[in-house]
Every structure is written in C-alpha cells, then in structure tokens.
C-alpha cells in the first residue's frame, strides 16, 4: 500500500463472492474514499446454472424440481408460476379447494421468505440474536410443509390443475396454532427491533428510492411499495382466490430501508390474516384437476390398451403446450416473479424466460450506495432482499 500522500486515489476493495455476509455469491467491486463509497460494480454469474436452457428440454413435471432452486427460500412461488403458465396456456380450471390450498401454501412461503430476510438483515446490522429467533419460527413452517408435501424446503407440490396431494388430517388445526403463535413472534420482533434507537439510526434515511425512480428502474415488490406505489399483483391481477379474502396492501411513503423493513413486517402480518381466513373457509372437493393427467384416448389407443396399462414403468403424465406465447406473473415476496413462455405444440417449451425479481431489483444498487458509508452497503443490500439463486438462475 504505497499511496503517496499527494495523489488522491480511490481505494478499490473487492467484496468477493466469498464473504461472511450472508447474501450468496455476489461480487461487489467498490471504489472507496476512506469510508465513503464512490462507486460499486456488482458482478453476477457465480451461481448461473443454465435454468432457462434446461427448461427447453424438460417437460413441466420434470422441470418442477429445478424451479425450487431459483428462489430457494420462497419455493412455493416458483412452483406456482411454473404451473400457472401452462395452466393459462391450456385453459385448465383449478378446483376451489386446490386454489385455497395453494393460497395457504403461498402465504406460508411468503412468511418464511420474509423471516429469512429479516435474520441476515439484522445480522448485517449487528444484532445477531434475531437470526436464531427467525429460524425457530421457520422450523415450524418447515414442519407444516413436511407434513403436507413430504419435503421441508424443495417441495414438489404444485401440479397442473391443482396440487399433488391433499392436506393430511389435522393439518388445518396445526396451521391455526402456528398463526396464533406467530403473531406473538411478530410482536416480539417489534419490541426488539423496530423501536431500537441504534437500529433506527442505522436504517432510517439509508438508500432512498423515490416513487418515480422505482417505476423507472422496474422495481417491484416491497421495494416498490415502500416508495409509495400501492402496486400488489395479488390485487391487480386477481389471481388464485385472493379476492375472497379481506386484506390490505402494505405500503409506506419514505422509500428508505426502514420503510422496506416496515413493509415486509406488515406483509407478514397480512399473510397471517389471509391464512387464517383461508383456513376457516376452505371448501371440500377435489385437489387436482385430474383431466390433465389422462392420456388422449383417441390418439394413443395402443398405449391405453389393457396390455400396456399395468406394466411397471409408466410414462410421466405429460402436458402438451400449445403453440402460443404468454407472460404470467405472481407476487413473490421479493417482487414480481414472471415467466415468459413460448409453447411449441410439444411437451417441451420453446422458450422459458424467467423474470427474477432479485435481478431487476439489484440494478439499483450502484446508484443507491453512491454517497453512503461502507457500512451502509450491507444495510442497503439487505433491504433490497436478493437471493442469488434467482438472480443468476
């Protein structure tokens, strides 16, 4: 470090892909002037796995295990959108009960994602205890998921036309118990974090995004709602059965990191409200539209014959995507998760473009950190809430 005292050079620090800060493999090249950040260049691609290319060679059922690896903390949303695309292309109706189950699972997944956002966010700011508390709550959600789907995190639960299996007996009561317990947990976080003066000093006024900027940059999700734009796809698109529940869009006006924090905490409480209403009002009925599974009797007469039905190795039920294109989107906890799907009258899609919310939201990072201190970078990055699995795909 032989910088002569007269020359004013900026120090280039590399916050490399390996970093104790828990944000996945993101590489930031920072130009610092002492403690102030002059510029920041994010370098992506360390977790690129070729998800979009792989999708071109897989049927929907075969591709479902891959999608949970995009956003591995809010897995139900990725599955939901993988299924919603073909459903809308093929005009398939989803039974009411399946829709309710999907909504419950999606909202539980939203709570889980926001919880695991909160832990590392607080750990970056320095309070390392909430990290353990959120895992305590997340373990309960894992237990619920495991009882219903068989897996704690990478459930393979959604199917075209519904869900894979019905909820087990007693699951609804357990879920209600969880909702009651979780409300006390959120109250605990409010007491511990929201009114802490050190936390407020670290977070208030940091990384301000105005409403116009947010729309220009294409942000979505809590980042958009914290800047004063009341845009929630659940209200805009009227998908699944969100219209039957009584809930409100969480939004704030300031656009700083504190506003984003408040929006996410508020969203957790709203999700509990939705879950409770869904649990009360869940109808009976089928949980999957089995019509999609059946082979076309006319065309595959030989394969539907008696001789072939009971052979041990059956082909997976494939769904043929018509030759149309469609953009379908869902309100993931991190933003607007979208799939642009071009079908090709075969079981493989022709193009499967993923619109990851984290990737689009991350674009604003260099602008936000420009006049901030070194310690604020982690605060801002944490409040954007990215997950490298979906940023890099």
């Amino acid at each position, binding site marked *: 470090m032989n910088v002569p005292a007269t020359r004013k050079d900026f120090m280039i*620090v590399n916050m490399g892909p390996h970093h104790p800060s828990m944000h996945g493999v993101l590489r930031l090249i920072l130009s610092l002037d002492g403690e102030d950040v002059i510029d920041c260049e994010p370098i992506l691609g360390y977790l690129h796995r070729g998800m979009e290319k792989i999708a071109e060679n897989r049927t929907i059922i075969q591709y479902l295990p891959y999608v949970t690896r995009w956003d591995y903390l809010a897995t139900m949303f990725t599955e939901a959108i993988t299924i919603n695309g073909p459903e809308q292309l093929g005009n398939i109706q989803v039974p009411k009960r399946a829709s309710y189950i999907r909504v419950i699972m999606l909202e539980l997944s939203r709570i889980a994602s926001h919880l695991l956002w909160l832990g590392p966010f607080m750990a970056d700011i320095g309070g390392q*205890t909430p990290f353990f508390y959120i895992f305590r709550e997340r373990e309960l959600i894992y237990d619920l998921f495991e009882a219903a789907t068989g897996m704690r995190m990478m459930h393979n639960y959604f199917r075209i036309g519904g869900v894979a299996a019905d909820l087990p007996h007693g699951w609804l009561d357990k879920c209600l118990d969880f909702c009651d317990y979780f409300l006390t947990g959120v109250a605990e976080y409010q007491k511990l974090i929201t009114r802490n003066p050190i936390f407020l000093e670290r977070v208030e006024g940091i990384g301000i995004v105005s409403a116009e900027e947010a729309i220009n940059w294409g942000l979505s999700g809590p980042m958009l709602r914290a800047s004063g734009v009341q845009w929630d796809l659940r209200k805009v698109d009227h998908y699944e059965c969100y219209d039957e529940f009584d809930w409100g869009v969480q939004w704030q006006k300031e656009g700083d990191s504190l506003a984003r924090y408040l929006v996410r905490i508020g969203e957790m409480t709203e999700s509990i409200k939705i879950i409770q209403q869904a649990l009360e009002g869940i109808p009976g009925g089928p949980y999957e539209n089995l019509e999609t599974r059946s082979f076309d009797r006319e065309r595959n007469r030989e394969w539907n014959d008696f001789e072939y039905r009971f052979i041990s190795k059956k082909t997976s039920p494939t769904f043929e995507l018509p030759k149309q294109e469609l953009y379908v989107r869902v309100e993931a906890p991190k933003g607007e998760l979208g799939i642009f799907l071009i079908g090709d009258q075969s079981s493989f899609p022709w193009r499967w473009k993923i619109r990851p919310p984290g990737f689009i939201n991350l674009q604003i990072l260099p602008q936000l950190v420009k006049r901030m201190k070194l*310690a604020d970078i982690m605060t801002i990055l944490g409040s954007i809430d990215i997950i490298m699995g979906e940023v890099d795909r």
Partner: protein
Amino acid sequence: MIIDTTTVQAINSFSRLKSLNEVYGILWMLVPIFTLVLGITIGILVIVWLEREISAGIQQRIGPEYAGPFGVLQALADGTKLLFKENLFPSRGDTRLFSIGPSIAVISTLLSYSVIPFGYHFVLADLNIGVFLWIAISSIAPVGLLMSGYGSNNKYSFLGGLRAAAQSISYEIPLTLCVLSISLLSNSSSTVDIVEAQSKYGFGGWNLWRQPIGFIIFLISSLAECERLPFDLPEAEEELVAGYQTEYSGIKFGLFYVASYLNLLVSSLFVTVLYLGGWNISIPYISVPEFFDFEINKVGRVFGTTMGILITLVKTYLFLFIPITTRWTLPRLRMDQLLNLGWKFLLPISLGNLLLTTSSQLFSL
C-alpha cells in the same frame, strides 16, 4: 590474631546464604506476579464459558457441553487447537509489525492488572497514580492494532486497524473524565484509597449512587474500548471479514481473542473497584464470629482476605452479565455514528459530570 576456622566457615556460609537470599528475594517477587497471571487466565476461561452460556440462553440454544462438565474446558480446547494450527504470514506484509502487533495488544492490557486491589494489602502495585496507570497503558493497545492492520498487506485489515485506532482514542477521553470524577470524590487516584472511600455506608457508600451519570458513561466508553458490540465495527464480520484480524491464524489469532476478553475483564474489575465498592462486603452490621474476626488473629486475616477476593470476583462476574447481554441484543453502530457518539455526546456529558462533581466537592468543603 588467630582466626578460628569454624568461625570463618560460619561467616562464609552466612555470606553464601545472603547471596542466595537475594536470589530468593527476586524469586519471591515473581510469585505474586505469576499468581496474578494464573488467576487472570482462569478468569478468562470463566468469562469465555460465561459468554457462551449466556449467549446460548439468549439465542435459545445450548452452549458447549462436551468439553469438560458443562463445557467449562471449551476455551482451553479452543486455545489448544489454535496452538496446533499453522502460523501464516502474508507474503508481502511487514513481518515484524505483523508478529509484534498482537503481543502489544495483550501486554498493555496485562500490565493494567497490577493496580487492581483484591483486598487491603492485596494489590500487586499500590501506586499513587493507580487508576491512571490503566488508562495510560491501555492507550498503547491501538498502536498494536494499527501495526497488525498495516502489516497484513490487506485493505480490509488496514481499514479495520484504522477504525480500531480511531475508536479507541475517541472513547478514552470520556473514560478518563469519569475516572477523574471518581478520584475527586475519593481524594486520591490510588485504587486502594478509592475502595476505602466507599466502605463507610454499606450499599449506600458505593460510588454508583454518587456518580450515576459517570457510571453510564464509563460503561459505554469501556464497551467501546473493548471493541465489543455495539461498538465492534473494526471486526465487523459482515463488512470487513474480520477487520485487522483477517490475516491471522493460529495462536496469534488466539492472542487477539484473549486480548479482547482480557480487556473486558479488566474493565469489569475497574467498574467493581471504582463504582461497586471493591472488596467490601457492603452489607452493614454483619456480625462475624470472633474466631473469624480479621482484626484479632491470623485465621481471621486469612478469612478476611479470602472474602475480599471472593467478593470482588462475585461483583465483577455479576456485572459481566450486562456487557455480555448487551452484545447479543443490540445492533452495531456505524463508524461515523460511533465517533459522533464519542465526541459530540459523551465528551460534553462527562465534562458536565466532572463540573457537577467539582462543584459538589466545593460545597461540601
């Protein structure tokens, strides 16, 4: 004159004994020092164990439970493991600075233990300047941190070392001003005199009640000096990997770890001495049976001294709950907020505290 050979032999053996006496004299000086160092080491082990158990309780998990009963030997196990690790040197770093840095941080803190009293005549060095020895010598520690940061040839470490030095010097001044107020109250800077001045009214004689603002400022400043959360930005994991400790491995890293806890222990001992009444039992009108009364016979004196040590340690470790709980509850302050707090908030308040103390002393005269 006939010199008696036996007398000569007696004189010779006597002189040999005398030179041996000097040797024994020197050795006898080293015994209290080693006892103190041994005591400090055991104290550190206890602090580490206490921190791990308390943090585990706060985070709803169990702490170490395999190394020794209740995990008490975990710190020893960690230290031994660090001894066996490879000692890395950064390839283009300054080797001498790199090696000496941690040692300076530890030595300066160890030297301050010599003025802590555990009993009336039970202090290693009863100096007139007493408490100020601690403040003066602990100011050398930032030099050690700067050396480590610079000698690592690593931008993270350099940043961390600079931050650590800035933080240490900022918070020394409020610390010194609080200690100055205490010496005003006790008419002396010697630690023994400070404790003696608190011995008169049991609990009510503690300096804690006479200097409440000073206590809080001392608490915050000593947390900042020890670089513990909420002031641990120099070693903030999320931003700078590990600050000035990044390039260290093996026992040098162990030295930094130990230095942090040494600093914490000496700060807590000083809180006990300055504010919580030192070795006094502070419960008035306890009637001690005659056998144990320390003014009368030897057993009593031994008993009295042991009680003094025990009471100091109990007060220190009860006080330690506060820094440890604070560490795991509060988030950390950003560097400029930290410096703001030190210079613009604590310094004026501690000056005001000093002014109040001085004026109250004037009135009481």
